[in-house]
């Protein structure tokens, strides 16, 4: 097997901020607490996790913007802390969002500036800029000021900047955040096209369906630790089943919940309440427990509603994050 595109070993990162009138009070935040990770060349790898999990922190470390407090991170075989300058031309970074662009100048001028900073050969620069503008669908808006751009257009421009110098590896931090469904879909297509062109992509996301749709493998980060790392199918197995049964009624008795839990094949039950109703979510493997068996176990309760569906990555993710919280 070739060398991994990303190799993270025991990376920790602590932020120290200061408070108080004379900044005398130190506050430490442990954003990453010993992360291990490998991404293979050509892979589209997803990094998931709730707010504050440390996703952006990890992306910034890998893209040489932030130093790890301890541990080592190698990208394309280069240690990010030791030789950032050699690495930078070979990677692209998209932090996205409303900011991060020179608003008063045009999209094309923004790209021209960064093309110069990245040393895109002057002879081919104009052509390259037109090409990436075309790739992201901004050709028509290319000469308008960025301040007139919608959120989605800015996001596309961020991506254009990220791929401008033809990087081997792209880091995308929440590439579809704040986009409407159509723009988000366009963006996902652009990301898939990059991978089809041989670019390795590491993206972070809050949206499980997005990772499910795009990524071969994902890692779930929670409170600075990786709590799961697998293929999407593997993760589904990890939480005990690729089928989910949702059982709803106006309240369950403890005895009923115990009885359900005792049924063969039920790996876990999550209890939620909304309004007067209570919902039990059961994860079950293919060929395991069915709707009828659950109904039988809740004998005599006619108002019980039972639905069966595929376990989504969203479910897996919530299970994992909840597990971590307990």
């Amino acid at each position, binding site marked *: 097997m070739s060398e991994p595109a990303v190799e993270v070993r025991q990376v920790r990162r602590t932020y120290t901020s200061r408070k108080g009138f004379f900044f005398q009070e130190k506050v430490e935040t442990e954003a990453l607490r010993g992360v291990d990770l490998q991404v293979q060349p050509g892979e589209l790898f997803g990094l998931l996790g709730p707010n504050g999990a440390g996703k952006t922190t990890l992306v*910034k470390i890998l*893209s040489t913007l932030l130093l790890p407090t301890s541990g080592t991170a190698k990208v394309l075989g280069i240690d990010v802390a030791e030789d950032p300058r050699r690495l930078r*031309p070979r990677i692209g970074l998209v932090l996205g969002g409303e900011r991060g662009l020179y608003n*008063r100048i045009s999209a094309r001028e923004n790209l021209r*500036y960064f093309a*110069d*900073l990245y*040393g895109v050969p002057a002879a081919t620069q104009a052509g390259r800029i037109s090409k990436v503008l075309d790739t992201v669908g901004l050709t028509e808006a290319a000469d308008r*000021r960025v301040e007139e751009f919608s959120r989605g257009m800015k996001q596309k421009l961020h991506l254009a900047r990220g791929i401008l110098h033809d990087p081997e590896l792209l880091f995308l931090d929440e590439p579809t955040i704040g986009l409407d469904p159509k723009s988000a879909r366009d963006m996902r297509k652009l990301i898939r096209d990059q991978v089809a062109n041989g670019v390795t992509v590491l993206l972070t996301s809050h949206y499980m369906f997005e990772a499910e749709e795009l990524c071969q493998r994902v890692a779930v980060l929670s409170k600075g630790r990786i709590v799961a790392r697998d293929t999407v199918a593997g993760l589904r197995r990890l939480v005990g089943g690729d089928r989910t049964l949702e059982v709803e009624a106006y309240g369950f008795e403890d005895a009923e919940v115990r009885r359900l839990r005792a049924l063969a094949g039920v790996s876990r039950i999550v209890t939620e309440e909304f309004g007067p109703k209570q919902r039990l979510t059961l994860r079950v493997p293919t060929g395991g427990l069915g709707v009828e068996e659950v109904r039988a176990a809740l004998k005599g309760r006619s108002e019980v509603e039972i639905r069966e569906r595929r376990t989504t990555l969203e479910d897996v993710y919530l299970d994992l994050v909840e597990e971590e919280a307990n």
Partner: protein
Amino acid sequence: MAATTSLGPRALLASLRVTILQFLADPQWIIGSAAAPVVFALAAFEIYRFSSPELVLFAILGGGMMSMWAQTLYGSGWAIGQDRFLGTLEPTLGAPVDYIWVVGGRVIWNTVSGLLGGAVVVGVVALAYGRPLPIHDPLLFTLLFVLVMLALSTVGLLFTAIFVYSRYAGFVQNIGEFTFYVITGCMFPILILPSWTRPFSLAFPATWALEALRAATFTPYQGLSWGVQGDLLGTLVLSLAYIVVSIGLYRRVVHYLSDTGGGSSDDY
């Protein structure tokens, strides 16, 4: 991919270009920043207008210098402040080129616009005076005037690095503004300052450039001047020293940002 060492000058030009484009997109702000020193200089001129032409010139020069210095300070704060404000600092730091080149492009623009501001002040007050000023060698005067601004630019470069430690930026800016007026003797002769301030004055390349300008303009001139040539040498040596220190400081600054994660904060 081009060797990263050759990227610097290109980044400097790119940065200068973007700075000018940004200015052209919204040029009206310069009226505000140029108007204040003019008003200030006119007020000073009123105080001196019935004194000797030398004193009037002294006041005019002081006004011009203050304008240039205000522009330098404001400009060097904004040179990195804009990247914080716009969120472009991290994308820029992620590029394979030293940040100092990017700042360099902006400092060049500050130098040009500072010179324009200074020239406007001198021009307006000279018009208000309505009589010829005792400038014996206009060419030398102009060259030395430009030199003062160039010396100021090296200070601007250094200050920009200091402004990275953002929470002190406002403080440095305020203290810096008024300290300059005093230690370079903008408004009154430097010689009336207590002698312990002398090292501070002399550690500042703009003081030397300004002394050269005054020595060439006022004859006889009593100041710290070592003669025009001596002052020129002093300006050169100190300016170079400021650039060398800046280069080292920028390395530290970039390391500081990646160490603290401060590159993402927008609290300019």
